[in-house]
């Protein structure tokens, strides 16, 4: 009650933030999930963390509507006919985005934007298209005030894709996040280089290994913080295992690998299953929401993301004095941990996850603002990066192979990279060939920086730190993380 009162009377929360917090508080008054004692204990210890998903899930966490299908068939519930020209398309999308539920209440996926737009720009000049896209992007940035929101480009080169990159570079804003799906066989170097140059100017787009990620599902998209999910579906839930907190419970690696880890994973998996069953069987989402009833998402295209965080610290715990990322002993321990985890995921039967063959899918969770001393997913801690960028990327590739639903590295590049995006592309090609799945970078002098995955403006962080109000929710998350995770000390890669 006092919680709710403090939400209602808060001076720090905006009106919209209050509404969301109140909904959350209401949801949390329910106790509808069966959570065994041991699982509760793990949750209290912070070993299993549900990332504030709420006690009674009434929608999947991440929803990836099939926008192409919506554009083809219209949306009856919203009284939207199939758009006939670019203006109609952009209005159509704005309206539809507004009605896509998610954990943040904002849409986390905006679709393959270049492919959606391309058929509507024939006969329009670049200038005309760019002006419309500018307005569209400004609308998105100012109304989706949370940068866990993602649009995709590529892998094919399109005029729309190039114009989107142009506009993105001019606007320098945090929303939408963009990712280029890159496949050397389909994406011409010139288009990829334009994307990289844009990224070195405005930290956007990130580059995703289309060849490897296409193997996970028939059609995938990138949403939120680098979640790789099926289009026309999404993810019911993302719960994470905070590995260092579990590792702290013992000094004995064998006990960790054979007892603690399997026990915690079993508890977490059962908890996720419980959530999934509630969404599917009780919440009514799939029977009543228009996205489901009109076929823009299909129930059997949803997965369950089994999140991991802090592999580095867990490995270092069992390899005293050694460092994950540079010492083979620590990397070896990390590999043993990953083998146990992926072995578990491969045999656990998860309900309602047809597209994943009824299996849990691993996810390298990027962390939250209250994590201290816990490195994102399977990344190397800031400050421990290998001296050579090649060794860094080779290391990532070794661990990315375990993770189907999203893992990434973020590399700040020296500003000279701007003069030779082709060289950065060579590095990306090499990394992807070795098995790296996803790379994001920004130039060391850029105002926009990537925090754990989302973008924040350094200038906005300064504003927030000096006590001023800021529009983006993610600035509030990013400001403490930028400081506590020492992101300013990320190893800058000279090119």
């Amino acid at each position, binding site marked *: 009650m006092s919680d709710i009162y403090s939400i209602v009377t808060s001076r720090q929360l905006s009106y919209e933030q209050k509404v969301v917090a109140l909904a959350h508080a209401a949801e949390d008054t329910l106790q509808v999930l069966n959570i065994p004692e041991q699982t509760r204990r793990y949750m209290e210890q912070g070993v299993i963390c549900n990332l504030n998903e709420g006690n009674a899930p009434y929608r999947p966490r991440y929803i990836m509507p099939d926008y192409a299908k919506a554009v083809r068939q219209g949306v009856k519930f919203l009284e939207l006919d199939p758009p006939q020209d670019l203006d109609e398309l952009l209005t159509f999308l704005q309206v539809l985005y507004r009605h896509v539920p998610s954990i943040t209440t904002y849409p986390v996926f905006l679709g393959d934007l270049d492919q959606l737009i391309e058929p509507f720009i024939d006969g329009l000049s670049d200038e005309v298209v760019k002006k419309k896209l500018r307005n569209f992007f400004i609308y998105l940035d100012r109304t989706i005030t949370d940068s866990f929101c993602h649009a995709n480009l590529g892998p094919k080169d399109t005029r729309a894709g190039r114009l989107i990159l142009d506009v993105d570079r001019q606007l320098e804003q945090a929303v939408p996040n963009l990712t280029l799906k890159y496949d050397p066989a389909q994406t011409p170097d010139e288009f990829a280089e334009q994307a990289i140059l844009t990224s070195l100017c405005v930290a956007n787009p990130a580059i995703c290994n289309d060849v490897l990620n296409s193997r996970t599902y028939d059609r995938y998209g990138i949403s939120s913080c680098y979640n790789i999910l099926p289009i026309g579906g999404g993810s019911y839930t993302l719960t994470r295992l905070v590995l260092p907190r579990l590792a702290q419970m013992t000094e004995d690696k064998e006990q960790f690998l054979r007892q603690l880890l399997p026990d915690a994973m079993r508890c977490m998996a059962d908890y996720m299953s419980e959530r999934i069953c509630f969404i599917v069987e009780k919440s009514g989402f799939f029977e009543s929401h228009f996205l489901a009833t009109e076929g823009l998402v299909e129930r059997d295209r949803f997965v369950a993301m089994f999140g991991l965080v802090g592999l580095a610290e867990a490995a270092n715990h069992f390899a005293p004095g050694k460092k994950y990322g540079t010492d083979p002993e620590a990397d070896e321990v990390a590999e043993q941990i990953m083998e146990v985890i992926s072995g578990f995921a491969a045999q656990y039967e998860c309900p309602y996850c047809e597209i994943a063959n009824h299996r849990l899918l691993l996810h390298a969770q990027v962390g939250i603002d209250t994590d201290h001393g816990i490195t994102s997913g399977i990344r190397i801690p800031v400050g421990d990066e290998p001296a*050579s*960028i*090649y*060794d860094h*990327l*080779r290391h990532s590739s070794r661990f990315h192979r375990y993770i189907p639903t999203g893992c990434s590295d973020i590399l700040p590049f020296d500003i*000279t*990279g701007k*003069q*030779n995006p*082709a*060289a*950065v*592309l*060579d*590095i990306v*090609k*090499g*990394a992807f*060939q*070795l098995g790296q799945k996803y790379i994001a970078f920004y130039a060391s002098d850029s105002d926009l920086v990537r925090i754990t995955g989302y973008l924040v403006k350094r200038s906005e962080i300064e504003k927030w730190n000096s006590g001023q109000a800021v529009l983006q929710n993610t600035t509030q998350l990013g400001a403490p993380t930028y400081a506590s995770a020492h992101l300013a000390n990320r190893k800058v*890669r*000279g*090119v």
Partner: protein
Amino acid sequence: MGYRRKVRIRKIISQSTVDGPGNRFAIFLQGCNIRCLYCHNPETQAMEDAEAQEMTTEELIEAIRPCVPFLRGVTVSGGECMLQAEQLTELFRAVKALAAEMHHPLTCLLDSNGTIAFSRYPELMQACDGVMLDVKAWDETVYEQLTGAKTNSTVRENVRWLLEHDLLEEVRIVCLPGRVDVETILQNIAEIFDSIGKTSPIRLLRFRPHGVIGELENAPMPTDEQMAQLSELAARYGLQTTIR
């Protein structure tokens, strides 16, 4: 493998974006035969230096090997790389063998001051994919004042020879108003391009005092306008330039 030739090296950089197209492994050799006033790396000029070291082709190949997936190629620079031309043939052949072994194409480029005739080393030029050629001045007096070398006739011949053999990767001109006869260089290069009917990209490098010692250590950098003017002038001769 038996790659035993030795090269005198000043340093190696496994990731360079300024030594030719794409991301390259750059090898800087010790020793130069001229003395440019604007030299950024005067420590590489002496033929011997305590910080230089000998490396065999084999050692170099093993240093390149782990970088291969990320590379577009290898560039040998200096000092003056052609002073060790004999040894480089083996290196370039070994790089090509490495590329074949790893199924990853690699180009081999030379970055040279052009004082030694490439035509004298046909085997090396067969293994080499191109030369980035410094044309420091066209007029002999200007050249001598800038480099201490009596003549640049070989440099001029090299422009022609490399172009004819499709090996002129790019022409580099360091622009320093009052010291370098950029206009004359551009005009003469354009004439050679016309007479042969081929072209090559021209890179106009802005003089930077970084690392320079002696007379020019405080010389001002050319302004953006001066660089733009030179680029326009080049365009009038029909030359494609990039500025750095």
